[in-house]
Structure formats: C-alpha cells, structure tokens
C-alpha cells in the first residue's frame, strides 16, 4: 500500500487535490493511505514551496497547482 502525503495549508486546491488522489486510487483499484499535512512549518520543512504538494512514499513528486489526472495515476501505479 502506498502512502500519499498531501501538503497544503487548507486552501480549496489542496482539498481538490486530496479528492483527486482518492478518486484516482479508486479508479485504479489501489488502496492508498492518504495523509494531509496542513501545518505550514511541516510543509516548508518538506521542501514544498508552492502548494499543494504531493509526496508518494515520502518522495516529493509534485508542487504547485492541481496535478494532472494522467500523471496522478502514473505516480499511484508506479
């Protein structure tokens, strides 16, 4: 099971990103563990400068803006 971390201070885009991740996982039939990090300090410490950021298994794969669905599926199924 992959663990996905979403970094975002709670703006609308961050919530949309979380929903997109869950949707993509359901579509792919994968079980994922989604964690949301909204504390700015932790966001900054993770090296994310533009939110929302996404990390898969602790590795940052995306920062800034909504992810593209096709890329999201790629990260989840990689």
């Amino acid at each position, binding site marked *: 099971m992959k663990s996905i971390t979403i970094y975002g201070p709670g703006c609308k885009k961050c919530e949309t990103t979380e929903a997109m991740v869950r949707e993509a996982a359901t579509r792919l039939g994968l079980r994922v563990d989604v964690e949301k990090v909204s504390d*700015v300090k932790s*966001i900054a410490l993770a090296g994310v400068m533009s939110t929302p950021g996404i990390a898969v298994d602790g590795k940052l794969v995306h920062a800034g803006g909504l992810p593209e*669905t096709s890329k999201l599926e790629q990260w989840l199924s990689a």
Partner: protein
Amino acid sequence: MTTETQGISHRHEMPDWVWYLSVLAAAVIWWLVYGQLIPLSEWVTSLFPVARDSHTGSAIAFFAYDVPKVLMLLTAIVFVTGVLRSWFSPEKTRAILAGKRQIWGYPMAALLGVLTPFCSCSSVPLFIGFVSAGIPLGVTFSFLIAGPMVGPVGLGLLYGLVGWKIATIYLVFGFTIATVSGYVLGRMRLERYLQDWVRALNAGPVGDLPEEKLTPIERIKIGLEQVREIVGKVWIWVLVGIAIGAAIHGYVPEAMMLKIMGGEAWWSVPSAVLIGVPMYTNAAGVIPIAEALLGKGAALGTTLAFMMSVIALSLPEMIILKQVLTLRLIAIFIAVVSLGILATGYLFNFLL
C-alpha cells in the same frame, strides 16, 4: 497494468491544430467585440429611462462600458501571463536567486517576483524555502513585494483604463519600491526578528522535483486554467470596484474631489496610504476606482499612493506572514514599503 492505466486516463484530446486555431479564433473575436464596446455600452445605457447626461445616466454609462471592458482585458491578460509564467516556478526562481548575493539580487528578485507564479496562500512555505536556501532576507522581501505590487492584472488594467503613460509610471515606480525596500530591509539586519523556529532552520531541505517539460498545448491549458481561477475569483471585486467608480463618476462633484485628493494639501498622500493599507481588495477592484478618481481631477501622486498601498500591502497577507515574521518585523516591513509609496506620491504631486 500499463494498458489499464491508459484505458482509464484516455480523454478525448483535440489534435494540436484545433487548439491553435481555437486560440486564434478567440483572439479575433475578442478584438472585434472589444472594438465595439462604446456603441454597445451607449445602447445599454439608452435602455434606461434616464437622461444620458444626468448623474444617474453617466454613472450607468460608466458601469456599462467598464464592466465588459475590464472583464475582457482581464481575461486576455491573465491568459497571456498564465502562459508566460508556465516557464517559471518557485523552485527555478530560488535556484537563480540563491546564487545572487550581490546588489543586483534585489532588482532580479523583484523581476522574478512578477514572473513567478505563486499564490498568497503559499507565501509562507515560499518564504521559508527562500530563506533556508540562503537567499538574504532583503532579497526575499523584494520578491514578495514585487509579486502583488507589479502584478500583470494590475498593469494590464491600468493600461486599458487609465492609459499607457500612467501604467508605465506605475510599473517603474512599483518595481523601484520593491527593489529599494528590499535593499533597505536587507541592510537593517532583521534576521533576529524572524519567528524563533524559522531562525532555527539553517540549511533547509531542498525539494528536488524532476523538471517538467511542457508542450505548447499544456501551456495553453495552464493559461486557460489561470483564467478560470483568477477571473472566477476577482470578477466580484471588479464589479464592486466599478460600481464605486461609477458612483464617483456620476455623483461626486469635481470641486470636492480636488479639495480631498488634489495635490495641494500635504496630508492628501499620507491619508490615501492610511485608507489604502487596510482596504481589502485587489488590483482588479481598485483600478476602476482610480480611473474615476483621476477623471474627477484627483492628483496623480495621491491616486498612485492610494492604488499602491491597496495593492501592495494587504492585511490578510500580513496575517499569513505572521507565522514566520514577528510583529515587529511586520511593522518595519509595512513602514518601509509605505515610505516608498509616500515618496512616490509626493514626487508626482510635486512634479505635476
């Protein structure tokens, strides 16, 4: 697995030439409609049962002309900037600035502040990302001031509504204020006024993202997404701003405006700043007001000062920054930027 993924993510993608053709067609239609806005707005105004030259009539005409004009300009500008900004990212900007410790780090930061896409909701992670990469505090401030102050939305609207001369003045002075304020703040050695936990971070982590290669179509899509997001968010401010502008245009007598916002009274510039700082709106909302003020004979310096303080210094932004800066540092920051704005205001009232 691969085939499955492809089957799922497949969408009806248009061929590239359809994209290019659509953008071109949209540009042509935009141009044709934009050229017809005056007759269009006069026609709309004539539908109201009021005399064209009455107070109400001229307020309605102002509103009916400015609303479509501003919204169309905004759409075009946000699209073009969205596409341009797809070449920049906070990560790239940080890499560029991290190497610049010399004096020209400041103008460079101001320039990148204009070109780098970032939303105020991520200004804290961005601030930390910069400071932890060893970018001097002053340079970081230049970046943070220039971003909102010399935003493309504001410049484009100034250009469209008030004319290229004032847009250029605004650009040059906005840029100068960002550069000089950053430099002054940098010289003041304010690192000790950062919040403790920020100071504790010395060599911070650098998130290394794989560089993304975007196709032209993807850049167009980014532009469209920006339009949806930004225009979708600011249109209400535009309407409110234009409504206030229309009221000023139709009802406020010129003599009164000259008395309050004319260049004669020494207190007109500072009071414009005092009113401007706590005002929560954005470039799109304040520029129609500035247009009406100037039209009624308000002094250029006073109006510039008002606009700049509304756009560059906003309370919500300060509250966000409170997480990394102490109150004292925020106060110094506001004071330095306000001084720059005051100086600009006085300069133009004095020159003209």
